[in-house]
């Protein structure tokens, strides 16, 4: 990889190199310090989107594409040997119905193991998995060591304790249990949190010295507002979030917290929980446009995301994307890692729009 190249010709598109390293740029951005150009992250293109991107950019892999786009964050997925998904986000088999066991196919609403259990002392009737049996410590170390140390090496932990607690009962049941039988809800979400704390410990130990940041999070927002009231989140969900954040901080890792949707009323909470950057800034969701966030939180935290993937990146023309990125740069001269408003780049985003986005970021 050729990330250390310093190139004073900042105006040349794609591949222009700034005067800061990836890490310097990232750290300055989350500290709201001046940057040579905005920090950026491509995101995680879904498998169906990959062939189109590779063909358009004439590269052989997403790694090569990242070098070409010169983004700053290198995601490292947690190697988890639990077939068929082999994905830590599918570590719990709560669903009573069979469904495709892939992160994209799990549905939080299917009736779950705890659907009819209302006695918190029965929480251990579920066969809670031991992450040590499945999390591949060797592969974790190998992957982290193989990543170019110039990048911000980010563990994709998710650790979605709230979403898993929803799946544990079936989401609708879970949200009712949260209010009607909080001890039951707490018993389950605490077990899930313990699982992630243990899994993350294994991963952080294995990757010590080779990891810079982590991505954790849960979806709390819909298009128009929070799904759950802030008070309930504070009582039942954020205590676990706090533990997960504190743990990452003990390892010196920066914490990027993900939540889709409209989450304005809990941004201050996330800041107080110690989050370094808030992702993905779903620009079209209520109160989540860059202007509103700047007004409320500029200088108080940093954001990651912001380029709308619900309309602009899908239907917009490259010049409209360029204009949006310039607007974001104006609003956030620092404090924003520019990235699509959902990390999962779907196949309906034309690669030319991705190109326009990074041209504008790097120019």
């Amino acid at each position, binding site marked *: 990889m050729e990330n250390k190249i310093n190139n004073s010709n900042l105006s040349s598109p794609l591949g222009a190199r700034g005067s800061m390293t990836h890490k310097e740029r990232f750290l300055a951005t989350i500290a709201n310090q001046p940057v040579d150009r905005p920090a950026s992250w491509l995101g995680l293109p879904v498998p169906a989107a990959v062939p189109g991107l590779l063909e358009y950019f004439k590269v052989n892999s997403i790694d090569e594409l990242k070098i070409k786009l010169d983004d700053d964050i290198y995601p490292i997925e947690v190697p988890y040997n639990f077939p068929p998904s082999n994905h830590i986000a599918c570590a719990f088999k709560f669903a009573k119905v069979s469904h495709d066991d892939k992160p994209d196919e799990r*549905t939080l*609403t299917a009736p779950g193991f705890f659907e009819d259990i209302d006695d918190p002392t029965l929480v251990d009737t579920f066969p809670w998995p031991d992450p040590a049996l499945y999390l591949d410590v060797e592969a974790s170390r190998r992957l982290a060591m193989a990543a170019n140390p110039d990048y911000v090496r980010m563990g994709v932990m998710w650790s979605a304790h709230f979403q898993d607690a929803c799946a544990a009962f079936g989401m*609708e049941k879970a949200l009712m249990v949260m209010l009607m039988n909080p001890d039951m809800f707490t018993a389950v979400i605490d077990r899930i949190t313990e699982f992630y704390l243990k899994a993350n410990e294994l991963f952080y130990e294995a990757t010590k010295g080779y990891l810079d940041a982590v991505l954790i999070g849960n979806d709390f927002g*819909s298009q128009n507002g929070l799904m*759950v009231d802030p008070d309930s989140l504070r009582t039942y969900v954020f205590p676990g979030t706090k533990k997960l954040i504190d743990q990452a901080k003990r390892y010196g890792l920066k914490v990027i917290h993900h939540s889709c949707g409209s989450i304005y009323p809990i941004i201050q909470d996330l800041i107080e929980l110690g989050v370094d950057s808030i992702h993905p800034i779903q620009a079209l969701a209520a109160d989540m446009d860059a202007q509103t966030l700047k007004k409320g939180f500029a200088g108080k935290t940093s954001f990651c995301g912001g380029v709308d993937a619900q309309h602009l990146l899908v239907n917009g023309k490259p010049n409209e994307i360029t204009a949006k990125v310039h607007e974001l740069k104006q609003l956030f001269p620092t404090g924003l890692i520019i990235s699509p408003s959902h990390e999962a780049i779907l196949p309906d985003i034309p690669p030319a729009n991705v190109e326009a986005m990074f041209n504008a970021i790097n120019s």
Partner: protein
Amino acid sequence: MNQELLEKLSECVEFGKINLASPYPPQMKGMPGADEITKEALEAGVTPGEILNEALISAMNKVGQKFSENKIFVPQMLLSAKAMSASMIHLKPFFANGSVKRKGIFIIGTVFGDLHDIGKNLFSMMVEGAGWEVIDLGIDVKIEKFVEAVQQNPNAVVGISALLTTTMVHMKPVIEAIKSAVPETKVIVGGAPLSAEFAASIGADGYGKNPQEGILWLDKISA
């Protein structure tokens, strides 16, 4: 007395008090819920129609209003819907024998390719609470399944939900197939990435940003 029962029932539904045993909401703990009050009301001679129209529909209307203003959220709304169902159970025999009429049949599903159903389920509950009979076809609903459902219920109104830009484009062929099978069918669409303009462009008759808007539209076309 009867008026008082209707008001109490309405309050139970608005605040999600399902039955006596339910500890929620805390301020109504130990009090009878929608279940018991509906039984009591029927025994006291309140008509099922009064229960539906004067308690359930009006309470769910308030719930929808508060939800659209972000004053309550999904959990509270679910509990209201649950309280409504606890009452509605007692009305089922009257729906079956025709002594109470609902506003019509509403068929709903999430478009094929899309697995999101939290919003669709909430909207279904609200539509039921607004006095409709709901047939929920589930998620990832193929065109043929929608068509079959409208053929079996030719006077039904159809709702389609999509949460992804990659699946909202599937709505147009669904609407075309529905309308070619039963031309008079009215279709309303909703979901995060949609807009009224998009809805119009694919031949939908209505669009609801939230359940409240959807129900206003349903009331308008069924009036």
